[in-house]
């Protein structure tokens, strides 16, 4: 028996080889190269000189670049807080719906995922621009006399971020509220807790993993979604993402870009690690 088992396993090796090869060469390889690159020196053009140095990391500490990290962080934080405030109740209410409504709401929620995010952002450009719909409506209602400058501003970027990332928060809160045992809430009410107290001590605590995983699913991408800041913010705010892109293309300082990427990656992993520590969960709620 054990011999056939061994034979069975060894004869399955051919199946795994493409994955092993591809993953090692095109996923692990580039990431290792990125770390190596971050210690190199920029040469002329896209060339790199292999004199190991910490210069690139020191450069990040330059006030200009620290400012970029701070601004990215601030923007990500602002967007994430708004996403939490908007998305948590939505996911929570959705879990309380009847089965048939749940299905409909899920479909409505998933459909935008399948529409190119650029298309959806373009819709916001039409709405927010100077002679756009929102200004037109506000003017007709007599709320403003002169069109507001809505597009290419900080709030416009936040709108874009919130818009693109909100479904992730809703889905992860929903999937954790779905599993909530509502009789626990009832028990709390029966024992004399008010509506708010019952929610706070029971429902909120039990859906916290969903909320936290939503925070990670929205916070991490919002540090890197440079095209939102580009399209809706008109390059007014430089995010870490835009900085990396600029260094890779116009700036031609690849080692510096690599160092920025390494730092961003460390920040990302720290957040995921923190999440796992807090919730004791291995996989993020709401994906997979």
């Amino acid at each position, binding site marked *: 028996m054990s011999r056939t088992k061994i034979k069975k396993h060894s004869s399955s090796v051919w199946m795994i080889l493409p994955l092993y090869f591809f993953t090692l060469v095109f996923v692990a390889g580039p990431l290792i190269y990125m770390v190596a690159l971050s210690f190199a020196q920029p040469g002329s053009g896209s060339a790199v000189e292999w004199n190991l140095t910490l210069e690139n990391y020191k450069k990040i500490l330059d006030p200009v670049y620290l400012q970029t990290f701070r601004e990215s962080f601030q923007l990500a934080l602002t967007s994430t807080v708004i996403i939490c405030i908007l998305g948590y109740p939505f996911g929570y209410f959705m879990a309380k719906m009847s089965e048939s409504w749940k299905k409909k709401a899920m479909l409505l929620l998933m459909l935008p995922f399948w529409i190119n995010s650029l298309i959806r952002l373009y*819709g916001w450009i039409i709405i927010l621009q100077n002679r756009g719909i929102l200004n037109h409506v506000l003017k007709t209602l007599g709320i403003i006399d002169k069109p507001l400058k809505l597009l290419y501003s900080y709030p416009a970027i936040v709108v874009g971020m919130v818009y693109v990332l909100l479904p992730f928060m809703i889905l992860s809160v929903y999937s954790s509220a779905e599993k909530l045992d509502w009789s626990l809430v009832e028990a709390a009410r029966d024992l004399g807790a008010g509506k708010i107290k019952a929610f706070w001590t029971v429902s909120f605590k039990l859906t916290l993993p969903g909320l936290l995983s939503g925070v990670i699913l929205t916070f991490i991408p919002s540090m*890197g979604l440079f095209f939102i800041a580009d399209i809706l913010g008109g390059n007014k705010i430089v995010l870490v993402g835009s900085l990396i892109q600029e260094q890779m293309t116009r700036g031609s300082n690849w080692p510096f870009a690599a160092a920025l990427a390494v730092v961003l990656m460390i920040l990302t992993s720290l957040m995921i690690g923190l999440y796992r520590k807090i919730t004791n969960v291995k996989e993020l709620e709401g994906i997979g």
Partner: protein
Amino acid sequence: MKKNSKFSSLYMGIIFFLMYLPVAVVIIFSFNESKLPVRFTGFSLKWYQELLGDSAMIEALGNSLILGVASCLVSAVIGTLGAVGLSRIHWKTKGAMEYISILPLMIPEIILGMVLMAFFYLLNIPFGMLTLLLGHTVFCVPYILMEVKARLAGMDPSLEEAARDLGAGSFRAFRDITLPLIMPAVVSGSLLAFAMSMDDVVISIFVNGPRISTLPVKVYTQLKTGVTPEINALCTLMLAFTIGVLAVYYLAGRLLKGKNRLFSIKKK
């Protein structure tokens, strides 16, 4: 207790309205006569005509479709075989390998795009369709891998063992038993991968090179410079296409599920 108030329905309604408002606006203005998306001046299909006459745009669309199909096929093979293989072997590196292969979904896209660009340059692979294909395959494989893995977890391993006991080789057992059973997961994973490939901007921007452009990259550069309602028309068509793919997916899922149900009835 498990009841929704009027407030919550209203709240969800407002959020859904805001979610679909930009999409609706894009579609409506694609039929607008005037060039400026400010007021609706009259129904017209002229932007669709102009779009069809725009050869650069059509070429980008062709590139995106070829790329989407190719990367989806390549990653379907790698991902499906890999998931089945991972369920069969017990190497020490298995856990690590699984983790690394799913990594592209967990790191910010910008990092993935940047490292791939640097890496392709290092390997001296000329930027173009090949680098795009490799780049897209990197983030497509995990979708298929995860879908198939989930499906395999719910599968009865004795079916394949029976085939092996009856003398089928590993390839034969895979082709005749395992593959038909995991097919729904392969299809749904591939469709997801295709959609992601058609949607990708960030990674494509880094690895496409100067000569080749995919549709999302083209749309992105247009949005940054001058926008014409041609973009609206394009967006509407892409949306129609997406809904078409979803419909096919839904129907295929139903058909395949039906087939499986038949299979399980026969088994009984």
